[in-house]
């Protein structure tokens, strides 16, 4: 089989697909991750309003705080495309600045999530207390784990950038990490709409016991 050797973003393309193998691998992984998160979101929606004991979404979810964290994550997506753009143009100062900003925003998002989880725990909402708690914590903490992994990845890239190992020649490495980061962002877009905005007004379902407060 004949192969064409080309260079895309500093990566030699010498396979029969004609596209970057790293990028192809990342898109395939993201495709599988869509189904992974889809399963947990479907489970959450299937069990929506099925908890017979509290606390219920209307007792716990804090939309203003989550809106801020959502905005922070959205803006981190802007940060990473800017970092990649400047890296490709070999404007290293701006590339480092935006990559650092993305890491800070990612840590900020995780900070919001830690605050939210501890607030819920103080109220008496834990994964084992009811169906809402189980499905909510499973999905949001899996997402949080993805964000945390992304932060570690970006810190590693930033260190490489400072050492001079990441530059316009191998910008594909940041592009791959960027794809992962954007994916984490789009998953949160769906989670914010379904788990928070649509669910936040759900109260006691038929047959449920009204919640009278935490521990």
């Amino acid at each position: 089989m004949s192969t064409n050797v080309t260079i895309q973003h500093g990566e030699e393309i010498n396979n029969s697909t004609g596209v970057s193998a790293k990028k192809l691998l990342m898109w395939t992984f993201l495709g599988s991750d869509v189904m992974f998160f889809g399963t947990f979101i479907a489970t959450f929606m299937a069990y929506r309003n099925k908890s017979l004991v509290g606390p219920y979404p209307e007792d716990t979810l804090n939309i203003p705080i989550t809106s801020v964290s959502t905005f922070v994550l959205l803006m981190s997506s802007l940060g990473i495309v800017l970092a990649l753009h400047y890296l490709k143009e070999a404007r290293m100062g701006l590339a480092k600045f935006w990559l650092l900003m993305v890491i800070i925003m990612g840590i900020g998002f995780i900070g919001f999530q830690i605050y939210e989880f501890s607030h819920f725990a103080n109220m008496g909402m834990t994964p084992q207390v009811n169906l809402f708690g189980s499905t909510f914590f499973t999905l949001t903490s899996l997402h949080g784990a993805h964000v945390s992994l992304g932060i570690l990845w970006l810190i590693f890239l930033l260190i490489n950038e400072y050492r001079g190992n990441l530059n316009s020649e191998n910008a594909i490495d940041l592009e791959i990490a960027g794809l992962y980061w954007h994916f984490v962002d789009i998953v949160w877009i769906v989670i914010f709409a379904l788990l928070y905005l649509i669910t936040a007004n759900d109260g006691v379902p038929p047959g449920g016991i009204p919640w009278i407060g935490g521990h």
Partner: protein
Amino acid sequence: MDWWALNYGGNMSLLKDLFFYQGNKWWKIPETTELSENPKNEHPFGGFLEKAKNILLILSSGKGHAGPVYYWIIAAILGIITLIEVWWFTVPELRYMLAPAMLIFSIIKFALVVAFFMHLRFDHKMFSTIFITCMVVGILFFSVFLLLSAFHGLGT
């Protein structure tokens, strides 16, 4: 010669290009007869979409690839949609439409991030095919699971 000079000779404003039909009349419906072929962009907006696409090309520095201005615009749109979502949530009169509205808004945000931030719009079709196929399969399973749970319950 850069893209702008090549296409516009460097002297046509963005506004004119967006709203003029063939560069000389505002909002003009092209004159046609039954014998003539259908003219290109035959509608009152004079090829608004085609020209809007050109504006995007200009914003992306003529490279057919997004640039920083473009990214800031997409981010602003994402921020505004999020604000509208939160506002919608706070208005009790709009609550009956909450679920469909949130789904539509999140689909728009999702599409914007995937198409422009993830460069899927500008990238190789193979990536779109892989991602969209997985999305379709995921949504299919999602729908079947929800339908089954609605009709048969989940043993709660």
